[in-house]
């Protein structure tokens, strides 16, 4: 407590010295302004068009989906939809919608908005919805609060339900109808039904969101103003937290290496929950066009060469778990531990390479590879540095090629100018949403985060296709367990770590991390205590 006093008096002194400019920072009373670190400014902020965590982090507070992920049984909490039910034949899903919900401009929310969003936005425009809703034929609206989705092919309700938090952000029809949706001015000043209303955006500096007084849930939200402070620099986020300039840094904005120290700073807490439904996997993508890597033994050698324990320890500092396959262990539904494992074993890796016909040369090198770490997280780059060394230990000379995100996208996903790439792939609660893409054949070049390594496995393709139309949840789960086994057996890619993010927050915050997509949920119940 004494610390707090001295801290305040110090700020007071500084403020007095400097024309009292410091005062607003102290006005952090209950229900006041919450300042959050944001590391990027998405150029398209409409979550119905771009379903990505960077967009959701800001936009999900304004535009809500039909349902949100939940720690409760069933894994979903109703938001704009109160219930959903699939037909026996899997050709339709009926949503009951919440009544008494108002758009931020005062107009009532109805089933017409849902139908419009699904048919005009999610299906034709959305990065994830485009494939998920490819078979959506029509949305019927028998009344203002019922929407019936009709599909041309059987579509598992399990998949739709799992995808709801990600793909179902609802836009107001009356604002978007008849306009060019991607260019609508409302994309830059969002109108939704969420607990917060759009305030302003000062590019390079901040987004300001204000409390929605007419929010449908009583006594929510509990915060007056929500500010996203743009801090592209990670060290700045930690320092700003410590200096009390911001109260929350999510998505591991504070470098892992700094967490231990930060966790001991009075007034701050480190939270590791709240990201379970958006687990990232550290994945080694493999270009199967490379003659060496086409050989399974070489891929197995690469897998054996990686010391996952070291990766978890040194790179993730314990804030990650060993990945066994393409589904993270923290997924409650689909995960199976019964897969091929590749324990760290340098000798075995060397033996496999010898067997594959790549004896070590005079300098100990067997062959050379290009290694392209994705430029997205510190950890992928660090793992790139590590993998280079790990491969050197078994005689593979991997030269790192550094690209920025555009260059990486082009080199890996369009031009296939890589041998190994490192990607932070996301598991989004259901393998069909963005995981099977990573190994399915026949995906045209230019599609990011998809199988661009030229891997083809008819057995795996057939399994993926079957799961897409399998309605019985138990059967679906079994198919995906088999999927995990096939992937680990043939190694189209190598999953190294399941990695969850951390948040660092002021201990004045209540209601943190209370759902598995917390950082990208609507924060209606988040509270700031004095």
């Amino acid at each position, binding site marked *: 407590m004494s610390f707090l006093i001295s801290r305040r008096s110090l700020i007071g002194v500084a403020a007095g010295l400097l024309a009292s400019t410091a005062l607003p920072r102290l006005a952090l009373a209950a229900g006041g302004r919450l300042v959050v670190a944001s590391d990027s400014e998405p150029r398209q902020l409409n979550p119905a068009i771009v379903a990505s965590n960077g967009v959701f982090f800001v936009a999900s507070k304004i535009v809500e989906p039909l349902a949100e992920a939940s720690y409760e049984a069933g894994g979903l909490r109703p938001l704009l939809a109160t219930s959903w039910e699939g037909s026996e034949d899997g050709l339709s899903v009926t949503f009951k919608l919440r009544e008494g919900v108002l758009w931020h401009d005062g107009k009532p929310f109805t089933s017409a908005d849902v139908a419009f969003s699904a048919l005009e936005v999610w299906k034709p425009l959305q990065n994830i919805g485009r494939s998920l809703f490819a078979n959506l034929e029509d949305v019927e609206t028998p009344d203002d609060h019922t929407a019936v989705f009709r599909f041309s092919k059987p579509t598992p309700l399990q998949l739709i339900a799992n995808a709801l938090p990600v793909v179902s952000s609802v836009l107001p029809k009356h604002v978007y109808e008849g306009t060019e949706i991607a260019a609508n001015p409302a994309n830059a000043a969002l109108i939704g039904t969420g607990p917060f209303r759009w305030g302003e955006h000062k590019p390079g500096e901040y987004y300001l969101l204000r409390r929605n007084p007419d929010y449908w849930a009583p006594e929510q939200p509990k915060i007056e103003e929500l500010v996203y402070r743009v801090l592209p620099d990670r060290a700045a986020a930690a320092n700003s937290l410590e200096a009390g300039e911001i109260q929350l840094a999510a998505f591991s904005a504070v470098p892992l290496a700094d967490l231990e120290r930060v966790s001991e700073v009075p007034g701050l807490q480190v939270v590791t929950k709240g990201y379970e439904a958006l687990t990232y996997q550290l994945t080694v993508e493999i270009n199967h066009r490379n003659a060496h890597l086409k050989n399974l033994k070489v891929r197995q050698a690469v897998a054996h060469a990686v010391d996952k324990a070291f990766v978890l320890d*040194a790179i993730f500092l314990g804030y990650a778990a060993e990945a066994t396959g393409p589904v993270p262990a923290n997924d409650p539904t689909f995960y199976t531990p019964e897969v091929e494992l590749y324990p760290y074993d340098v000798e075995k890796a060397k033996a496999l390479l010898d067997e594959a016909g790549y004896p070590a040369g005079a300098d100990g090198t067997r062959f050379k590879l290009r290694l392209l770490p994705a430029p997205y997280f510190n950890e992928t780059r660090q793992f790139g540095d*590590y993998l*280079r060394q790990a491969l050197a230990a078994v005689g593979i000379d991997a030269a790192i090629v550094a690209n920025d995100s555009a*260059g990486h996208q082009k080199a890996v996903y369009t031009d296939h100018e890589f041998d190994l790439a490192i990607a932070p792939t996301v598991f989004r609660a259901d393998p069909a949403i963005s995981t099977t893409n990573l190994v399915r054949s026949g995906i045209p070049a230019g599609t990011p985060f998809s199988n661009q390594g030229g891997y083809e496995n008819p057995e795996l393709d057939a399994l993926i296709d079957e799961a897409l139309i399998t309605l019985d949840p138990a059967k679906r789960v079994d198919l995906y367990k088999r999927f995990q086994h096939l992937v680990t057996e043939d190694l189209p890619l190598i999953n190294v770590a399941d990695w969850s993010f951390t948040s660092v927050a002021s201990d004045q915050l209540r209601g943190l991390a209370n759902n598995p997509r917390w950082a990208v949920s609507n924060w209606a119940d988040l509270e700031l205590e004095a």
Partner: protein
Amino acid sequence: MLREVLRRPEAWIGGGLLLALILVAACASLLAPGDPLAIVGRPLIRPFVSAELPLGTDRLGRDLLAGLIHGARASVAVGLAAAGVAILLGMTVGSAAGFAGGRIDEAVMRVVEAFQIVPGFLLALAFVSALGPSLWTVVLAIALGAWTGPARLARSRVLSLREADFVAAARVMGMRSSEIALRLVMPLALPPVLAVSATIVAGAVLTEAALSFLGLGDPNAVTWGRMIAEGRNQLRSAAYLSMIPGAALALTVVAVYLLGEAVTEVLAKRRRA
């Protein structure tokens, strides 16, 4: 000339430091054999704790001393190469423009001007981001921002020397233009350019560090800038990671400046005499 320079204390300190540095850089493979990026120990061993790893290890357990030694090589090499390219390019282009005169000179000077009005670091940033970071793109990027100074200096020297009586006399005597340029004019145009070379080298070393700091260094080589950048996230918890290479960097730049200063002073004294 050399004797005069060596009489100055700045030259002793600067030269000594640089010599030591160059020695370390040259013998990097002997002093710290193997790949400096190899993981050799537990991550984040503090300095002066382990006898094997006297300066400790970084986040991945790489030897900081080995990094420092090999970083000296890369940093000095990049600095010298960039300055070399800049001076060579500047001298060539500048004196060619000076000798050619007329339209060619005019056109070349427009290009020089173009490079001069674009902030060099901005150019380097765009250049490396666009072409991808490697030691050579970094060297070129730095040189692109630094060659105009030598070019202008060389050109103005050549322009004034070109009209000198002794050049006319040499022509009257039937000396070839190439001989006039190389034997008579260049040796006189060179010293002022060389006098600024220390500044260019020091600037190049700092620019490389700044580029690495922004994540635009060669990912396969250790440089001090990269070490600072990597240590930056642990600035609060493991400050030594960026303090040690930072100090090495500053010391190097000081050494280069000191030596440069001694040379400049001697040159200035000679001119006054």
